[in-house]
């Protein structure tokens, strides 16, 4: 029924951290989404989310290491390494992991972000023990050889071409991140610069593995038709024997104050419609003025979340100046996050034609603030989204995974609806005034090439 259905084939995903408004956590009624939390003696943190609707389970392990933890000049290691985790251990040959999961009716994948690296298998609940054995084995048992790393390097170069280099927006996004941070490693692409990927050696990869991959630097999430006690027993049996290691602090270069904003203009013959995107440095739950983290989520909803947001309603529907306009924010990153606003002019209008109207919306927000009714509506929608997020095993598991792998807690997840519910219009206004600072802004403009424009 679906047109060109089933071209999944996105085997290994790099999550572009900043582009994702991470789906909203958890529940209005916490008892609906109880999670068990415990820690093994070797330091492995474990979260179990029981859900007995279907006899399936999602088994995920998250390592507290991401692209932002890479050594200088070695961009792309975290993601390269994610690929290599499928390349065999002393016990299982390259590819055997995937073959066994497939033969048992499982689906698996992995992903890398700036802050974490994750691996998961979705499988029949009675196969949990099987995937646990496999995952525990590759936590420390990986055997890296030139024979496996070289073809995979080429795969990653192709992945980079596919994700980044084949579209102007991919290339501009990379340039924008590089400009948004002066010193912090979030400025580097998760997948890495091509020339650095080409120069990563076996030693670099082995060192990375030995430095970060250990039970005391990982979080195990098991969601589905399981019993927490049984998960504890199995985890003790399979992960328990893996020895803890000395894990270094995740010390990242700190972003200094910005004294000027920047603007990046890219012209490309493949672009037919101009687009404009401005990103302000913004606090996260754990960085900067984190007291604004919840209010900023509400602000993003009111200003730019969907078809009834201020930007869309006023600029797209009522004034007809743009084909699209919105805002985006995630509080999830460990370090400074970004609050993005974006639009695309309608028809033959140029960016200069419509920018004043866009600015006027931001000015109005800063001057008059938001109304109580807007805040109430946005909060209701966000809290309802927590109910919807319980409808899929993966969604639930990912919320806990991102939170714990970024150094936050189960309680943070469970308190989310309450924290959102407590946000006041005054807090939203304060948060807005705190982030819309021109010196903290990076603007990206995508234009047709000069010939096309004329």
């Amino acid at each position, binding site marked *: *029924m679906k047109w060109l259905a089933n071209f999944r084939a996105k085997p290994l995903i790099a999550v572009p951290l900043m582009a994702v408004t991470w789906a909203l956590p958890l529940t209005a009624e916490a008892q609906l989404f109880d999670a068990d939390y415990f820690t093994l003696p070797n330091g492995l943190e474990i979260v179990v989310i029981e859900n007995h609707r279907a006899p399936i389970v999602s088994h995920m392990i998250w390592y507290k290491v991401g692209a932002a933890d890479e050594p200088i000049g070695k961009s792309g290691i975290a993601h390269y390494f994610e690929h290599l985790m499928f390349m065999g251990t002393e016990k299982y040959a390259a590819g055997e992991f995937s073959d066994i999961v497939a033969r048992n009716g499982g689906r698996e994948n992995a992903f890398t972000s700036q802050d974490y690296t994750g691996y998961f298998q979705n499988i029949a609940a009675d196969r949990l023990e099987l995937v646990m054995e496999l995952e525990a084995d590759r936590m420390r048992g990986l055997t890296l050889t030139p024979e496996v790393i070289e073809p995979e390097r080429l795969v990653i170069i192709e992945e980079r071409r596919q994700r980044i280099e084949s579209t102007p927006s991919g290339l501009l996004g990379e340039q924008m991140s590089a400009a948004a941070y002066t010193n912090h490693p979030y400025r580097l692409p998760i997948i890495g610069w091509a020339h650095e990927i080409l120069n990563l050696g076996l030693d670099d990869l082995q060192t990375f593995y030995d430095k970060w991959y250990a039970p005391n630097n990982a979080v195990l999430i098991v969601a589905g038709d399981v019993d927490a006690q049984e998960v504890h027993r199995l985890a003790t049996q399979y992960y328990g024997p893996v020895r803890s290691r000395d894990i270094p602090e995740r010390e990242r270069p700190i972003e200094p104050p910005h004294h000027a904003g920047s603007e990046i203009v890219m012209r490309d013959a493949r672009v037919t419609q101009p687009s404009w995107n401005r990103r302000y440095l913004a606090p996260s739950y754990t960085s900067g003025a984190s007291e604004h983290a919840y209010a900023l989520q509400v602000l993003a909803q009111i200003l730019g979340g969907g078809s009834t947001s201020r930007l869309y309603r006023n600029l797209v529907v009522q004034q007809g100046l743009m084909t699209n306009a919105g805002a985006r924010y995630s509080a999830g990153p460990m370090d400074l996050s970004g609050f993005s606003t974006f639009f695309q002019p309608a028809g033959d209008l140029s960016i200069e034609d419509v920018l004043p109207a866009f600015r006027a919306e931001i000015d109005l927000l800063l001057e008059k603030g938001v109304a109580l009714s807007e805040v109430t509506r946005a909060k209701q929608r966000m809290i309802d989204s927590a109910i919807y997020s319980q409808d899929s095993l993966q969604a639930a598991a990912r919320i806990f995974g991102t939170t714990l792998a970024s150094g936050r807690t189960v309680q943070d997840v469970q308190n989310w609806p309450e924290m959102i519910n407590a946000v006041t219009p005054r807090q939203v206004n304060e948060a807005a005034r705190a982030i819309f600072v021109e010196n903290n802004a990076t603007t990206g403009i995508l234009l047709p090439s000069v010939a096309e424009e004329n």
Partner: protein
Amino acid sequence: MDPTKTARRPRILGKACGLFAAILVSLAATTPASAVDVQRVISPGGIEAWLVEDHSLPIIALSLAFSGGASVDPVGKAGLGEFVSSVIDEGAGDINSLRFQQILQDRSITMHFDAFLDTFTGRVKTLTRNKDETFDLLRLALTEPRFDQEPVERIRGQILVGLSRRANTPNDMVSAAFWQHAYPDHPYGRPRRGTAESISAITQSDLRSYAETWFAQDKLFLGVVGDISADELGPLIDRTFGDLPAKSPPIDISVEEPATNGEVIIVEHPVPQSVAIFAQQGMEREHPDFYTAYLLNHILGGGSFTSRLYNEVREERGLAYSVSTSLTPLQHSALWIGRVGTANTDVAESVELIRKEWADLRANGVTEEELESTRTNVTGAYALSLDSTTNIARTLVGLQVADLPIDYIDQRNAYFAAVTLEDMQRVAAELLDPDSLTIVIVGQPEGIEATR
């Protein structure tokens, strides 16, 4: 015995520890999908829906399809179905666009429509507390869409921007070129989302006419999942869909084989990586050998990390990040279609490998072990796709569109269990046709010539 087969994947055999042996033995005994209990609900007014009750969360998901989709777009109005799908939630009855959207947002209701090749589909998700209002809005959208000028022009602008972006995006470019080539004189060959010209030509009355013609009870398929009982659902279905016309015109589209005849078509585009579609005639869903062909596809390119193409093109040689195939039965045709993204300098080698794997599977078939591991994969993994109310509702509709029985979810494993090794070799030899494989490439490929 084909020596390349053991050479291909020497690593899987004989190394699994006792645990896996035990688990493989027990696999056949598990029927994970049987947890889904599908009820046939016939409303008092005679409209059928398939229902899975699940009261564990206060959520109701509804999925619907009308036969037709993009295939019934009039000539010169390509993209009409897609246009309708983008604008019927922009005002209906007495409710204008802004208010309609505001109610959806304030009640946390998701309502989304699409026009695929053969079906116009909708999916709705709501919280139990807003059930009545949700079904009322759905009724209004389907029976009294307003198609006011403001939303129509706004959506037209968005579609045009989308089209011009797609016209420069390699993956979309290659799809467009392929379908046009494969179905030159058939609705499938027309751009599903339309062209700048056809979208500009569509009027408010075209939109209205599409909805009035094709949204009818005799074309409707319904799946509902979640916090609602069969008794509640019946009357609600009548209230929602009872006002639709009972009958609609027949869909007059010929059955057509794709024009896949071994051509190589190249669309020049300045990108470092070429993307290619390769395709041949597929197999219709009703064919008795469909399950055999499904398993063959899984072995060839459908199994994401384990297929022959994945191993040969990606794992062994690092030529691509993604390579895959899919068996795609359509209402009026059938395709076996694959896709690969590979560096311009490696296109020739990748295409050569794909043709070689195609020919090898035809000539030598599969091993018993490949058949068994693929069978356990496709039967075991089915339950994973039934993990959310939305996915189950969409599956219920897909089954009805394909005219499958209501106990299909329980029976599916048995269909695959019946496939024999002889079936696999026979269908591989009959269906796979490497010489007919048509290749469409977007990029700046080296070492390969276009045939036209």
